[in-house]
């Protein structure tokens, strides 16, 4: 029962998104536009760009994923599907987990796949590009997981988008610090990046365990 519910919601959300592909590309192009604005603002010197790249890629990813959060629950909330999911006899946390996973596959994973472009724009060494993809792969699920809590709390509010950013951006700080740290460290010789990867993995696991549960509680409060 539980697993089938998970599968149904995951499949449904992916299918809906594939029918309206423009939404996936909006987030992706937002990311690319922000990435390409930085060099225009701070100058195109190779050294500066290399130094900035880790922070820039993570901050752009944070902003892109925050913008995408609005769509996580709002469409289902407006047409009443969300209420059906909450009322369903199966575990709400599992359904919520499926929704967040689908959301990450549609907004987080594309960022990971497009990120080599950052390496190209910012003259990163090949080795660092792989590290960047790896830490984005580990880190972006945390963004979706934490963001889901804020999205559920602000469901259906006026000006919810700005409020979500205000609530969620401070919570993203650990991922930003260690995600960007790993990429910067990978450009140094003789320093291990293993601690960064392990910490990011820990954040990822913690958020996967706790966030669906908290998000479910938040949804219940918002739909009461």
């Amino acid at each position, binding site marked *: 029962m539980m697993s089938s519910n998970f599968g149904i919601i995951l499949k449904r959300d992916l299918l809906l998104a594939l029918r309206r592909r423009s939404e996936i590309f909006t987030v992706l192009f937002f990311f690319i536009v922000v990435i390409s604005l930085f060099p225009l603002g701070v100058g195109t010197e190779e050294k500066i760009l290399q130094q900035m790249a880790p922070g820039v890629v993570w901050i752009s990813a944070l902003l892109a994923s925050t913008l995408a959060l609005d769509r996580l629950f709002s469409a289902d909330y407006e047409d009443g599907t969300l209420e059906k999911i909450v009322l369903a006899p199966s575990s709400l946390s599992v359904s919520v987990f499926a929704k967040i996973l689908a959301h990450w596959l549609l907004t987080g994973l594309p960022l990971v796949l497009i990120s080599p472009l950052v390496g190209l724009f910012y003259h990163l060494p090949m080795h660092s590009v792989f590290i960047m993809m790896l830490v984005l792969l580990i880190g972006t699920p945390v963004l979706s997981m934490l963001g889901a809590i804020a999205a559920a709390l*602000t469901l259906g509010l*006026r000006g919810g988008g700005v*409020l979500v950013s*205000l609530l969620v951006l*401070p919570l993203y*700080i*650990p991922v930003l610090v260690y995600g960007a740290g790993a990429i910067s460290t990978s450009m140094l010789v003789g320093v291990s990046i293993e601690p960064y990867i392990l910490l990011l993995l820990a954040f990822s696991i913690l958020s996967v365990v706790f966030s669906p549960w908290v998000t479910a509680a938040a949804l219940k409060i918002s739909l009461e």
Partner: protein
Amino acid sequence: MKINWFKYSAPMSFYPLAGKLIPLFWIAAIVFILGGLYWGFFKTADVLNDQKQYYRIIYVHVSSAWMAMWLYVVMVFWAMLGLIFNTRLSYMLASATAITGTVMTIIALATGAIWGKTSWGTYWDWDPKLTTFLILLFVYIGYIALQSAIDDVRRSDKASALLALVGLALVPIIYYAVNCPDPTECASLHQESSLKRVESNILIGMLVTTIGFWMYCFATTLMRARIIVLERERSTTWVSNLPEIKDSEVEIKS
């Protein structure tokens, strides 16, 4: 004897009790703050040269910083009680605490900046403690923003309570993230806080001022809570029967 702990959880019995306590807390706050500052300014050994006198901002800085952190815990405590027992007053106290906590955080940041200019030569640095306090301010502001964005009182109470809980779980992680951005080494401008090494007169001044700040927090939180009680319970008969409400209505009419 059995004590009824829930008696004062009713806004009706809390309101007059808070009204009686507020003047006491104000008096205690003034006495302790003035006493602590007096001790700190005039009773400490004057062994330092004139240039170092600026350290005396410590009495305000440390007290407000302790209160800023403590009030977050208090706020989460009330939010949790609210979620567990579903008592309206707990939520009201949580939101009243949040504003005093924000004020304390701002005082700590401002006095810290002034102290930093004199001792480190800069108003701001991305030192772990400074960054943590900035983030604490963001978390407080997020809580207040969420609460004021939701019109439905029940939902706004519960949603912000849940946010406060999430914040409590994440603040230690954020603290360690900014405290130790490079996992292989940690550095900070702030020296390690160690009360044992502080000279005893300074310590007395600091602790007494902190008690004063604490009393001030009690007073302002209770005052805000009373206002929130009046706002939310305005349609009830006990509020309209309160002497202060009756008098003001007469004034408006006349």
